[in-house]
């Protein structure tokens, strides 16, 4: 196993960083889009259930099918992979963001509005800090989910660890499959641990245990 890694470390590490980059790009775009949508949905809470349901429906489409469906529009490679991965993330992110943002105690919002905060200040100074645990757990879930689904993106030539897994499968190379899997787990686990740490620190802060 180790010997295989040493012999093929350029290929394996290359795929690892390609994968990591795909996850980072996706995550960045997903968070931007989900933040904008959540901000809008805060003002239109009646619509928010519908929007979340629509993204839930998208989330339930098998990724292989969705990649295949979009190839005619965006072609092969990242141009198709990233929009699909971003679309999948919207369900996880918006649902968690909205749960956190709307779960803030109504009396805190009333105090904030009553003292003269404008709409944006209520969101940035009160809702977002208090929704942080839910926001972080949404991001954590979406990293784990993207890391997994992005391997499927190799079928449409998006590269990353999926490429290793696919070629391992084709050639029945168990070591290759094992390393592809391990490196995926490394990304997901590292993100998971890192964000859990943030969550814990944040919870301590929210409970008034000091900075």
């Amino acid at each position, binding site marked *: 196993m180790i010997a295989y890694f040493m012999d093929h470390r350029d290929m394996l590490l290359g795929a690892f960083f390609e994968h990591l980059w795909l996850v980072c790009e996706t995550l960045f775009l997903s968070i931007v889009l989900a933040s904008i949508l959540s901000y809008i949905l805060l003002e239109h809470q009646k619509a928010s259930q519908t929007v979340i349901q629509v993204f839930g429906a998208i989330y339930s489409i098998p990724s292989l099918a969705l990649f295949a469906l979009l190839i005619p529009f965006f072609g092969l490679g990242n141009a198709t992979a990233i929009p699909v991965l971003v679309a999948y993330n919207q369900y996880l992110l918006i649902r968690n963001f909205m749960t956190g943002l709307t779960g803030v*105690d109504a*009396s*805190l919002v*009333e*105090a*904030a*509005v*009553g*003292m*003269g*905060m*404008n709409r944006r*200040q209520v969101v940035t*100074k*009160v809702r977002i*800090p*208090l929704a942080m645990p839910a926001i972080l757990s949404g991001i954590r879930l979406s990293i784990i989910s993207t890391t997994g689904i992005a391997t499927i993106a190799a079928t449409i030539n998006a590269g990353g660890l999926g490429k290793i897994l696919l070629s391992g499968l084709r050639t029945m190379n168990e070591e290759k499959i094992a390393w592809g899997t391990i490196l995926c787990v490394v990304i997901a686990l590292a993100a998971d641990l890192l964000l859990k740490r943030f969550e814990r620190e944040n919870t301590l*802060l*929210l*409970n*008034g*245990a*000091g900075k």
Partner: protein
Amino acid sequence: MAAVTFKDVYKQFEGMGYPALDHVNIEIAEGEFVTILGSSGCGKTTFIKMINRLYEPDAGEILLFGKQIRDKDPVQLRRRIGYVIQQVGLFPHMTVGENIATIPHILKWDKERINAQVDAMLLLVDLEPQEFKNRYPAQLSGGQQQRIGLARALICDPRIMLLDEPFGAIDAITRENLQNELKRIHTESKKTYIFVTHDIREALKLGTKIMIMNQGQILQYGTPEEVLAHPADGFVEELIQTSGVSESLLKDGDGI
């Protein structure tokens, strides 16, 4: 000039069969401590939430220090009005000092001015600045929290304070102390206070004027002595009798 003027104000919430405010007319002079008394659903909270435009009237006019409030930007308007609610609403992720400085911070006061004012406000509500400034709301008792709520509302030196049952969830002894201090702060500041309560003793003790409301209408507006001596109608009379305060308060004059 009146601090607050309501001209034929009418408000009915959607899905309610009766109005929350039923053609209300009132003029509150500057410097008064008005206690609004009434049972739940009588319109007293609606009344004060209209002054800082958390609610908008369906009809009628509201003037604050002679100016139409509907012509003002609600956010700017609220920054000039102190607002205290029963649940206090301290932000749990901010220290006591940060909570008190919320609006000065938004208004971009300089650091020294904020610091000095926060200390002054803490002293005003009888809390030691060095001891309390860096604590979090969760580390305070209910009474201390409401003191911070008052400090936060007072920091911009508003000409008018709106208080919605601020001591409703506080134990009797602490409440007594808070009432005394609020009375002292009002007397020193000579600002206009409008204080909603359903506790007649509290209303009589604190108010320079009492406004008694029922079913969206103002039944009586007068000094505590006037209300006790000449109840406007059967409802007011009953309210005073059932609470059993008239005689004791009239006899020893405590708190009036």
